[in-house]
């Protein structure tokens, strides 16, 4: 086996580490994207019995954006197993308790319920903010593209940029600036 082929063999079966910034992203659509990398679905060597999934680090999971009024309407059900042990938690309540939970459940539920699912979830590392241990961050070699761009806040622009941006309307002649 030549040196090139040997390295190619290593690269093919090595676990790649991806990073994904969840700021302003829909967790349920992000789950479909992240799932592909976690399970290794994008690889030509993919097979359900072939353990070829990658690691994914998700940062800023506390900054996710739910569509519409899902913060109020989405309910997470849990049952302890005892009589009267059912509980229903709204999405915003769950998010205040644990900012990683909504994203974790979204990814868990996007995958088929088989024996591999728990092991695949072990390769997922979610952090509520951008503080990631350096030991994990050193492995990262790829960034997953965000589904939508994060908009810039008005106070992040300089005053010069705001003033010189093309204007649609002008003040009337008798307008008093207040």
């Amino acid at each position, binding site marked *: 086996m030549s040196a090139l082929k040997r390295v190619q063999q290593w690269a093919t079966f090595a676990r790649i580490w991806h990073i994904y910034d969840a700021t302003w992203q829909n967790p349920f659509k992000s789950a479909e994207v992240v799932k592909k990398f976690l399970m290794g679905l994008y690889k030509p060597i993919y097979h359900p019995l072939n353990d070829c999934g990658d690691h994914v680090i998700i940062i800023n999971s506390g900054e996710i954006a739910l569509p519409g009024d899902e913060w109020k309407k989405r309910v997470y059900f849990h049952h302890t197993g005892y009589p009267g042990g059912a509980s229903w938690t709204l999405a915003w309540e769950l998010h205040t308790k644990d900012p990683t939970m909504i994203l974790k459940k979204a990814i868990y539920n996007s995958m088929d319920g088989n024996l591999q699912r728990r092991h695949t979830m072990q390769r997922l590392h979610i952090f509520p903010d951008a503080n990631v241990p350096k030991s994990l961050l050193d492995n990262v070699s790829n960034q997953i593209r965000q589904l939508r761009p994060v908009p810039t806040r*008005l106070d992040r622009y300089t005053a010069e940029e705001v003033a*010189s941006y093309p204007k649609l309307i*002008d003040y009337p002649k008798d307008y*008093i600036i*207040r």
Partner: protein
Amino acid sequence: MNITKRIVQNYIGKTIFNNETRRISIFPILNVKEIHEVQEGNQLIIYGQEKASPREPYLLKNNQTEKCPVCASGLNIKHTDVLILSQFVRLDGCMLPRRITGLCGKQQKRISTLVSMAQKAGLMPNLTPAWSKKDPKKRIV
């Protein structure tokens, strides 16, 4: 009695309520743009200063004068376009009325909705009414 009443009504009514005789129109004629208040000792000086609009050099040309500025621009404005939305907002963060923006009713409604969406999303924290909760995370659902 009737005659005196009519005379009084005519005379007083004309002098007080007739707009032609009462030529009070403060701002359009004086052309005031900005009001300054200067405190010098125990003397308060209030004066109006005419100012050229800071938007003049950056104004887009409206070629279709029958349309409102937003309709004529043909832009699909979203709530994330804060550089555009901030043009329709007063310095205290309130929406400008239609007689000042000069938009059609449809666009005025749309822009004011987008402005409140941007403010609720925390995208315009420096141009938001003082009573509103600027950080969406601190807003209890």
